């Protein structure tokens, strides 16, 4: 097991791999994305986009049934083909406006709907210029003690802030009061994060997709599926245990073999929202079938310290069998046998 190298000053910029001379196919891009999955301890907000390995610059977020219908119609062109580059994200609770919160049974449904996200995306399938890969994803928060909107006291404080912004008359310019709400909400949320940085959570996500031959629904090929289950458990006021399990299955298509991959991570954090020590084990197991058979397993461990230098700017250092993953974009320097990582994300998930 190799330790970090004792290089006096080594600058490692962790960014995208150099562009290849040949353009990867969409499926290769997806598989590469699956291979490069970092253990972030956060279920993806939009599993469909994660499944396709894309980050759409424009995402449509319908908020009414009519918007949704229009958006979906826009996803099909005049000749009946699926439009590529389509990206949709929504919380489906708006589809049921008549489900008022009076019925306790329906309330349970609404709670589920209120914490569920649906995503849908399309991308051109390279290697077949007429085909389109389409994915749909679901995300649900099963439990989240760190979400202030599930906390009555926080809701009461929020109500007080909003009440203070009521205009005296309909004709009054209320912009000053309404603007003050923003600052008060930021302060309220900052206080919440300070005391709930290590809250317990459980969330899951699922993404699956298909290749539409000729970009039509009449002929499709199953691409596979990805699933995430992430959780954290707060230990007292200063500790947190986090875990993530991810499953990726990709069907054999074109030149790519069928493959499955399990990725996991466990992390323990002790400290505060600004300084903490951590220990982590991450690993994966892959298996391929078809004309390229084989399996691979690997695990890594890391332990160290991290500090919040400024808002959204973390410095971490430690030892381990390899550089630990983190949710943010990293820049690493190795000084005096220690690897120092600058990141835009901490190793816990406030």
């Amino acid at each position: 097991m190799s330790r970090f190298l004792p290089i006096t000053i080594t600058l490692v910029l962790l960014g995208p791999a150099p562009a290849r001379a040949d353009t990867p196919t969409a499926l290769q891009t997806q598989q590469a994305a699956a291979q490069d999955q970092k253990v972030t301890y956060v279920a993806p907000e939009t599993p469909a986009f994660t499944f396709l390995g894309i980050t759409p610059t424009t995402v449509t977020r319908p908020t009414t049934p009519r918007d949704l219908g229009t958006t979906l119609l826009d996803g099909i062109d005049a000749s009946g083909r699926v439009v590529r580059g389509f990206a949709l994200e929504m919380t489906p609770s708006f589809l049921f406006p008549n489900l008022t919160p009076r019925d306790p049974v329906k309330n349970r449904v609404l709670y589920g709907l209120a914490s569920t996200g649906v995503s849908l995306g399309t991308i051109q399938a390279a290697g077949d210029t007429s085909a389109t890969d389409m994915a749909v994803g679901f995300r649900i928060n099963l439990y989240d003690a760190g979400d202030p909107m599930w906390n009555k006291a926080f809701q009461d404080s929020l109500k007080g802030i909003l009440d203070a912004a009521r205009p005296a008359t309909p004709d009054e310019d209320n912009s000053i009061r309404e603007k003050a709400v923003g600052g008060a909400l930021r302060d309220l949320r900052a206080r919440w994060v300070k005391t709930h940085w290590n809250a317990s959570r459980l969330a899951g996500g699922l993404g699956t997709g298909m290749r539409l031959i000729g970009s039509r629904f009449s002929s499709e090929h199953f691409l596979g599926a990805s699933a995430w289950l992430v959780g954290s458990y707060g230990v007292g006021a200063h500790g947190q245990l986090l875990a993530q399990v991810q499953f990726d299955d990709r069907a054999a298509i074109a030149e790519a073999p069928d493959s499955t991959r399990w990725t996991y991570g466990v992390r323990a954090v002790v400290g505060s929202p600004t300084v903490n020590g951590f220990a982590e084990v991450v690993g994966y197991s892959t298996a391929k079938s078809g004309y390229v058979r084989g399996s691979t397993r690997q695990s890594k461990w890391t332990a160290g310290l991290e500090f919040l230098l400024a808002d959204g700017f973390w410095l971490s250092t430690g030892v381990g069998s390899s550089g630990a993953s983190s949710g943010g974009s990293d820049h690493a320097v190795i000084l005096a046998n220690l690897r120092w990582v600058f990141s835009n994300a901490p190793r816990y998930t406030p």
Partner: protein
Amino acid sequence: MPTSTQIGADPAKSIAIDMSVTTMHVVSSRVWVKPPGGVWALVHDGDFRFHEPDDFTLPAQPAGTVLHYWLGIGGNPSTQFSVVISLRQDGPLPGGTHLNQGMTDADGKFFVQDEVAL
């Protein structure tokens, strides 16, 4: 100012007003009415949240009265909200259900004002 929608309420009967939110948000409300040729009069301050709607009864109003409501919606940043304002007289009034939907801003807030010609 918002544009009034006409619902044709019976001026001889009171109006039941139900306010509810079907998403994880807290809503503060204020409601006024203005009779023809009159001035705005505050008739209700309320709040409601997921699981906890707010109901009140507006006494009979002369024909041509305008109802104005303000909603302050708060929740997590950049989250979709859905607020329903329903006016009833012996059942739902035609055009008496207002569905207010949208997304909170980066601070988690959104404000709505609208009017209904009773």
